């Protein structure tokens, strides 16, 4: 039996509620779906019990009424466990910084771009949006529309630069 399968079986025996929620996509790729209240214990077991000691990143998803969070965890040997959980918009999730101090930057990104609320995040500057960006604008939400740029020529750069305000040598920076 492959190592990936072993991890799957181990998880499903330890946490009965995960039965059927662990999917082996291919060798070395695990997808785990957990309810929000179960997520912290599964996460901790993955990190401490199963040795997934490397948090690659946290992906945030806009799923309409809910926000999705995928914790991409990796361990030696190349297995990657992707722990997905959902949380209704407006509710807050718990930080993982006690286990991964480096994760603060990923969580700040979730806060800025998706409007997620993360409890227990140590204070620090925001990331990645500028300090004068309005705090209720979260560009990665699907219903977020860019404000019309005040300069006539910026509109042509559809999407990519989605610049709501303008000043500075803009448009020309065209990073499309």
């Amino acid at each position, binding site marked *: 039996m492959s190592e990936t399968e072993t991890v799957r079986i181990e998880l499903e025996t330890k946490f009965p509620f995960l039965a059927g929620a662990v999917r082996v996509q291919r060798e070395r790729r695990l997808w785990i779906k957990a309810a929000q209240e179960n997520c912290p214990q599964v996460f901790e077991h993955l990190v401490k019990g199963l040795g997934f000691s490397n948090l690659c990143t946290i992906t945030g998803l806009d799923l309409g009424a809910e926000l999705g969070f995928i914790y991409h965890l990796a361990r030696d040997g190349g297995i990657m466990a992707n722990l997905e959980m959902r949380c209704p918009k407006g509710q807050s999730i718990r930080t993982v910084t006690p286990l991964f101090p480096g994760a603060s930057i990923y969580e700040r990104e979730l806060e800025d771009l998706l409007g997620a609320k993360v409890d227990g995040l140590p204070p620090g500057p925001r990331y990645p949006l500028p300090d004068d960006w309005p705090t209720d604008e979260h560009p990665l939400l699907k219903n977020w529309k860019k404000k019309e740029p005040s300069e006539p020529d910026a509109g*042509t750069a*559809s999407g990519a630069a989605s610049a709501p305000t303008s000043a500075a040598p803009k448009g020309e920076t*065209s990073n*499309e």
Partner: protein
Amino acid sequence: MVLTVLGSLFKKPATIKYPFASFSMPDHFRGQPKFDSSKCIGCRLCIRDCPSQAITITKVGDRKFEASIDLGKCVYCAQCAETCPRKVIEISTDFELAQTDRGTLKITFHAQPASGACPDDSAEPART
């Protein structure tokens, strides 16, 4: 290190006085795209695939199309040349495209008159 450094005194410099000395890119370099309006069938696939909306194709007559390519927007990926079913767009190795005026970066390849029989755009493309 000292010996190597002193040795390079007698070597030919690795740099060139660029704008004065000529420099050319390898054969397969993706430079400025060229458009041959005599072959275009107006399918507009290139517009759909262009990652930077640099191409506009306008119909100027019966089965006659002309393209304007904004070199300021173009990212020189050559996807248009690949997408095109008739190989209308070709990629040249020209890379010295700097202009002091943004407007001149927009190049229009005018349709040739049917009798012109001049398949390649030997005429200098108009800079609009």
